[in-house]
């Protein structure tokens, strides 16, 4: 009987509620995507710690700015989307290519077994966001960039973009299940992993998410790892290996932000 008593629904609800309150406190104090800041603003966070001071100095040789994202478990997808779209609005031919790929992605996901009825809503919003940041829009780069920033800070649009990228990632895992199964730790099947760790919001991303998303979109991302590890150099990793990156992210344990190279 004891084990049953633990199943008190009201207590569980209270725990879940408390967790929601903590999440809300975080989200109310951090914008979804922040302003561009000098990279050296990171120093303030580490309070003169020797290892981090040296590593940030190293990083500052390569990057001028950082842009923070909200630490809500969606940071990789949000940072990736923002950074990639920033690249696309300055590169008309890449933009056109991506727009086509995004347009076609819905039918592909339906073929892979996603329910078209619920998928449609996310796809439509995703396409609307892409249209709103077209490099052909009047006002030039600055105008479009500020539109991008505005959209990414509107919860509804911003989260729908995250959802759609999660679905694309999940679709890629499904499409090449045999290959990606090798990357999955523990007893998860690809199917379980997609439904538990990829599709739901607020679930943090791992290398496998990055690899699958890059493969699905044909995009390259460089991640700089800032942690307590040995040495005073920040290690970088390119996904997929050997690709010229168009997206630059900084990873600190548990969180991704956007970087701007010199």
């Amino acid at each position, binding site marked *: *009987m004891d084990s*049953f008593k633990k*199943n008190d*629904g009201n207590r*569980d*609800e209270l725990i*879940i509620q408390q967790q929601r309150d903590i999440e809300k406190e975080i989200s109310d104090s951090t914008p979804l995507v922040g302003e561009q800041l000098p990279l050296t603003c990171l120093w303030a966070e580490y309070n003169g710690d020797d290892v981090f001071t040296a590593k940030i100095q190293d990083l500052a040789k390569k990057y001028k700015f950082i842009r923070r994202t909200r630490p809500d478990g969606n940071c990789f997808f949000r940072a990736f989307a923002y950074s990639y779209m920033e690249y696309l609005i300055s590169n008309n031919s890449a933009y056109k290519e991506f727009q086509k790929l995004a347009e076609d992605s819905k039918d592909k996901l339906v073929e892979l077994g*996603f*329910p078209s*009825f*619920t*998928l449609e*809503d*996310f796809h439509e*919003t995703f396409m609307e966001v892409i249209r709103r940041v077209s490099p052909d829009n009047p006002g030039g780069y600055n105008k479009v960039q500020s539109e991008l920033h505005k959209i990414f800070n509107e*919860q*509804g649009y911003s*989260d729908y973009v995250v*959802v759609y990228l*999660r*679905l694309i990632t999940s679709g890629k895992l499904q499409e090449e299940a045999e290959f990606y199964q090798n990357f999955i730790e523990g*007893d*998860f099947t690809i199917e*379980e992993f997609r*439904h*538990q*760790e990829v*599709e*739901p*919001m*607020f*679930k943090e991303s791992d290398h496998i998410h990055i690899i699958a998303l890059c493969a699905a979109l044909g995009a390259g991302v460089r991640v700089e790892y800032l942690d307590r590890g040995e040495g005073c150099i920040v290690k970088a990793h390119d996904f997929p290996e050997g690709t010229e990156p168009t997206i630059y992210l900084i990873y600190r344990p548990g969180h991704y932000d956007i970087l701007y190279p010199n």
Partner: protein
Amino acid sequence: MLSMLSAKVQILHKPFVCDKHFTIFVDQLNGMILTELTLDPPEGIVAGPVSEDNFFEWEALIAGPEGTCFEGGVFPARLVFPPDYPLSPPKMKFTCDMFHPNIFSDGRVCISILHAPGDDPLGYELSAERWSPVQSVEKILLSVVSMLAEPNDESGANVDAAIMWRERREEFNSIARRLVRKTLGLPT
């Protein structure tokens, strides 16, 4: 029985067919919740917003699955959608008397699809279907129908019901049949 159900269908669906203003409002809300079920509701289920002023609260009527102790009953329930639906799942609560291993005594439904992974009140199995933004109201209601047909006594929201279902099935069935009569307004 059937005529009762279809009378309710008409009441619930009335706003969808005859009010233009409603459609405009739906568009503003992205249309997501509202259009879902009305296109092609599964057999034995009807659902729709309680009023035109509040699309975030729905009433559903679920027919007890055939060949089970709940057969013949029409069970009313409320669905409450969070402001960030469909990123987070709705909550569901039966508004009639219920006695079932996966329904709390206050009517709250406790099945895995109403929870996101990690949000795990009863320690569901890894493979159990969870909420994600591509799930839908329809999927939830279908899961509730299968829950009525096949209770999961491993995650007991109502411990007494779980034990009785496991050990004294006849007694459980007769309580269920009484609840069925009650939903139809028949003497129990």
